């Protein structure tokens, strides 16, 4: 492929082919399987295999196609099977359901009702993806192509808009490309929210013989998996975004830095680069414009701090992944001391859209200072776990209750944690805040990369703060003493509090240490390390105080601040719990409850580990967990 005309012709034929597949005008029906990590681990490949066997057994290869697509996003309802041209979406499909789908739907043309999504409020079955409430408020920009195209087939990508943005960019002056990105208002999706166009401008203005574009795919925030899904669902878009960035700043080399924990994403990215090299959309003299671009992949090795851009650059350079002082910023002196821009996966995935559809279209949704959409990984105590892409400005309430379907088991919403270990908690009183970069910061949290973990009344906020501090303590690279030592001391204090050994003085010390770590660390990891502590201390101080003064964990999580007892009037002396108890701490009493033939059991507090084994076996719910010590 050497000219714009050739690309146009290819796009035209691929678009026709994909449309024919979706609309069934090619005379075939198509079975799509979710190939995201979540569904793959729920055996979607075995499901695919079984479909292929059935198609072969019925000699229907020329009538039915079977292929994988990227993540549908609605992970808690996976694995998904979609059938074109009817656009029927089956959810939670098991291998054992495949024969039925094949017989009923593929052969018989009937919809298999029990595999359809059922709306929990109306109890009505929904056949099409777009009619499911979870998808209704979403708008797919960064997740473009996910659940539609085969992420390992460049022709399907070409049929779904790939490289049109690149083509448009290559017909413009680099400066105009940057202006377009500036006009779109795109801000970095990795956490900081720095205007992407300005970053590109800095690198554009730096004069050097070589410049680099680096894609930050070191998605380390626990609870965030949007970058993984984008790379797994449409790697072509991210590479295209990187190439546009390269053209804009004058870079001919690009590096993807992806976590080694994401093998499927790496495999598909590698495949996409190979295919793009083969058709000549990557390489030298792209489309005859004289623009050269080569893409490379580097794998992380399990260090969270490498998500920090300067640490990431050190890691690519084969060094310990420790951050560098800034300035000089990477746009001036980055990879191998050359001007470099580091953009997150989701940011780059938005770029082709902006060039293809125009800055105006991108900026048509969002808030004044945060344009476009943002992908969130909605997880924790929420019904609809999955990836959601929503326009900036959507409220937390809409995200949690409408898209997310609310909290399971009728429990009460307590907090939503955004921004991972660098972020904070938002509580019920913040539910009507429109989500954007600045609003979240104003409320003491941050957007971060988009992890959003919902917590209910059963989550202890001191324990959550301890969890994040343990994470940071583990992942601090050790370069700056305040971060290295300060986080350790904070963890010790939090551990003390959760074990009932804390004092009110500890709270003051936590606050003081938070300030020290925040103001004396080189990189964002240290500067934000205390955020979960500060935020929980602000919103849930009463929980800290309950741990310290009442020696009680109100959420009944911290093992040293709860106790187990048996409701002797419920116990029917079945002794299941006795067998389950690993420490033999359940004994028989003399008390025979009214209506019972045998004496009830009770728990010996000193021996009890609070492991929960007895609760899991008791069918009568006779074992009660109480906050506080006995």
């Amino acid at each position, binding site marked *: 492929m050497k000219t714009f005309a050739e690309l146009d012709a290819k796009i035209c034929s691929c678009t026709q082919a994909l449309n024919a597949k979706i609309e069934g005008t090619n005379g075939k029906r198509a079975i799509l399987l979710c190939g995201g*990590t*979540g569904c*793959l*681990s*729920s055996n979607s490949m075995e499901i695919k295999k079984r479909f292929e066997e059935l198609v072969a057994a019925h000699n229907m290869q020329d009538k039915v196609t079977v292929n994988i697509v990227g993540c549908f996003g609605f*992970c*808690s309802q*996976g694995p998904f099977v979609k059938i074109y041209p009817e656009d029927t979406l089956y959810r939670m499909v098991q291998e054992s359901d495949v024969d039925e789908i094949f017989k009923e739907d593929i052969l018989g043309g009937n919809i298999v009702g029990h595999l359809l999504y059922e709306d929990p409020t109306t109890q009505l079955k929904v056949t099409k993806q777009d009619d499911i409430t979870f998808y209704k408020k979403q708008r797919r920009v960064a997740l473009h192509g996910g659940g539609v195209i085969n992420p390992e087939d460049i022709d399907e990508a070409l049929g779904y808009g790939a490289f049109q943005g690149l083509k448009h960019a290559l017909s413009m002056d680099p400066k105009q490309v940057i202006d377009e990105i500036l006009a779109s208002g795109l801000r970095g999706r990795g956490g900081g929210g720095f205007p992407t166009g300005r970053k590109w401008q800095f690198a554009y203005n730096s004069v050097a013989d070589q410049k680099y574009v680096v894609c930050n795919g070191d*998605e*380390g*925030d*626990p*609870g*965030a*998996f949007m970058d*993984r899904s984008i790379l797994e669902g449409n790697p072509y878009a991210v590479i295209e975004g990187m190439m546009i960035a390269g053209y804009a700043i004058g870079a001919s080399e690009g590096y993807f830095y992806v*976590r*080694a*924990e*994401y*093998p499927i994403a790496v495999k598909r990215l590698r495949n996409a680069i190979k295919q793009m090299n083969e058709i000549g959309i990557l390489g030298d003299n792209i489309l005859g414009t004289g623009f050269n671009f080569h893409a490379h992949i*580097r*794998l*992380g*090795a*399990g*260090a*969270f701090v490498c998500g920090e851009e300067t640490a990431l650059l050190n*890691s*690519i*350079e*084969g*060094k*310990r*992944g420790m951050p560098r002082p800034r300035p000089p910023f990477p746009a001036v002196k980055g990879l*191998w001391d050359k001007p470099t821009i580091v953009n997150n996966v989701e940011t780059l995935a938005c770029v082709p859209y902006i060039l293809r559809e125009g800055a105006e279209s991108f900026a048509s949704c969002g808030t004044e200072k945060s344009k476009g959409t943002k992908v969130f*990984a909605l*997880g*924790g*105590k929420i019904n609809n*776990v*999955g*990836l959601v892409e929503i326009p900036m400005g959507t409220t937390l309430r809409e995200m949690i209750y409408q898209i997310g379907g609310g909290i399971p088991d009728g429990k009460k919403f307590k907090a939503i*944690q955004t921004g*991972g270990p660098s972020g904070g908690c938002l509580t019920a009183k913040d539910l009507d805040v429109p989500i954007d970069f600045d609003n979240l910061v104003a409320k003491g949290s941050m957007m971060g990369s988009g*992890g959003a*973990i919902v*917590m209910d009344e059963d*989550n202890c906020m001191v324990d*959550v703060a301890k*969890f*994040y501090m343990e*994470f940071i303590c*583990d*992942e601090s*690279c050790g370069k700056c003493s305040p971060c290295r030592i300060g986080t350790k001391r904070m963890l010790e204090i939090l551990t003390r509090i959760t074990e009932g050994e804390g004092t009110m003085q500890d709270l003051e010390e936590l606050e003081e240490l938070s300030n020290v770590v925040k103001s004396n660390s080189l990189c964002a990891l240290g500067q934000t390390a205390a955020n979960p502590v500060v935020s929980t201390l602000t919103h849930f101080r009463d929980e800290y105080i309950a741990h310290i003064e009442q020696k009680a964990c109100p959420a009944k999580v911290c093992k040293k601040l709860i106790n187990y007892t048996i409701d002797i009037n419920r116990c029917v002396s079945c002794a299941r719990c006795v067998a389950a108890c*690993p420490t033999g701490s359940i004994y028989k009493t003399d008390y025979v409850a009214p209506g019972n033939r045998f004496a009830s059991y009770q728990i010996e507090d000193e021996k009890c580990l609070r*492991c*929960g084994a007895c609760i*899991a076996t008791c069918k009568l719910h006779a074992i009660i967990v109480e906050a506080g010590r006995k």
Partner: protein
Amino acid sequence: MAHINEAGVKKINEICDRYADEKTPLMMILSDIQNEYGYIPLEVQKIVSEKTGISVSEIYGVVTFYSFFSLEPKGKYVIGCCLGTACYVKGAQQIIDKFSEILGIGAGQTTEDGLFTIDALRCIGACGIAPAVTINGKVYPKVSVTQVPKIIEQYRAMGGAE
């Protein structure tokens, strides 16, 4: 791998050669060695040093910085318990505790028979199916405490067989 035989040395040199054209190949070389052998002992680091000209101290610094690189051999089955936020709020701590209890080892340790290693993982991005456990790369979704003994038994039954 106390004494590396000739074939081993050859293999390591071969891995280094794969990246001869790269500007800064150390991470890639170490990743490949880790994947090939399961660990990167000092002897191997010395061979890499001789081959690439990077000092042993620098290599050692890199090996010990990243949690994917290991100085000690790992078990045949590496049980990775995700302790990311989504998994944690859904009870991942109890899952890893159960593995520890049954196998008698803590996180980062290997059983004496060399069969199992338990690793505490930071988010593996499988939050949609929390709590998640990986064993040699295979992801187990929505693991419950009661499943843990069965999972271990299944791998014990396979034992040392390939």
